[in-house]
């Protein structure tokens, strides 16, 4: 499946949380946080939050909807620009739609997002 436009409602809610300056609403998955910290230039998490907001506020940002049994909530992954570099991001909007968990904000390991790779696998079959 190709990337799809990330739904406006998800984006608006996530951007509002990122812009809220309320740290209690934004949590990080430890491995993702470590990977972010290990990249030169990734010193402060608020910079990642701002970059997320910038991307998700674009007119038609695209990404992949991550379908998982756990965690509950709605997760999208996408590529975004961070200090002039292409980064991979993955954010979970929790079921209460008031808090988010950032799973990833780091240099991409793959050229394509997960849903695009699934698509390639399908074509090969």
């Amino acid at each position, binding site marked *: 499946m190709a990337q799809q436009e990330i739904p406006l409602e998800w984006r608006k809610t996530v951007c509002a949380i990122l812009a809220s300056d309320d740290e209690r609403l934004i949590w990080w998955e*430890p491995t993702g946080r*470590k990977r972010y910290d290990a990249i030169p*230039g990734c*010193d402060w998490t608020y910079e990642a939050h701002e970059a997320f907001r910038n991307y998700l506020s674009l007119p038609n940002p695209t990404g992949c909807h991550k379908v998982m049994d756990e*965690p509950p909530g709605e997760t999208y992954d996408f590529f975004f620009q961070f200090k002039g570099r292409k980064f991979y991001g993955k954010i979970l909007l929790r079921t209460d739609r008031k808090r988010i968990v950032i799973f990833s904000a780091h240099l991409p390991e793959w050229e394509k997002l997960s849903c695009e790779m699934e698509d390639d696998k399908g074509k090969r079959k």
Partner: protein
Amino acid sequence: MKTKEEIFEVSIPTVEGDAIAYKVPVKIQLEWDDEIKQWLIGPEANKLIEDTKARHLGLLLPAQFKELRERYGFSQKEMGELFQVGEKSWTRWETGKHRPSRSSNLPIRALYDGEISINYLLKQAGKPPMKTAEPTVESVETHLHNWLQTVLGSCHLTVDMVYPENTVKPVLMESKAETDENEFHLQLAKLAFEEHGMTGVQEAEAMPKPSQRFIIAAPTHVYKQPRLCTQPTEA
């Protein structure tokens, strides 16, 4: 809420910012989230990580920004004007919402460390000079306490100006520090005390006479170096 401790290796960048110079292990607390079945890093752990990085980069911590402003009785707007960074930036640094760049931090750190005078900065900003008040015992003690708390900040070192009965000799209280870094800070504080003949916990016979009063003072600048100066005076 279920928690567990984990070591987080905080990456400290080079001056150029294009590589990692070294890593500092910090013990952080992860919180278990029952809904999503994951250990997560919350705001407190994140603050500890970022404060560690800021300290190693030589950046002032949020509490130090506030302390510096309060030292001169300025508003956030006035501090923003003094350093030509704007009120918004100053407020963000003071609240920890943002961190200053190394270049922005430089003159602020210099003022904090007493390397440049407030009147020099006021002159550069086209403002009249300040009259500097003579420090009082209370203000010096408060500054010293704040200094220890902010410099040693995240190590949870408890420093208290305790004057046991019949003496006014201060005692360095226990530390809850456990990591190497915290142990280093504790040793720093102990050294400062010992340099002036005061150990962490005073022996009874080593106590000064009841009539003798010790004042913790900082003759030049209390913030300038990790050194406590004591001087006996008559009570």
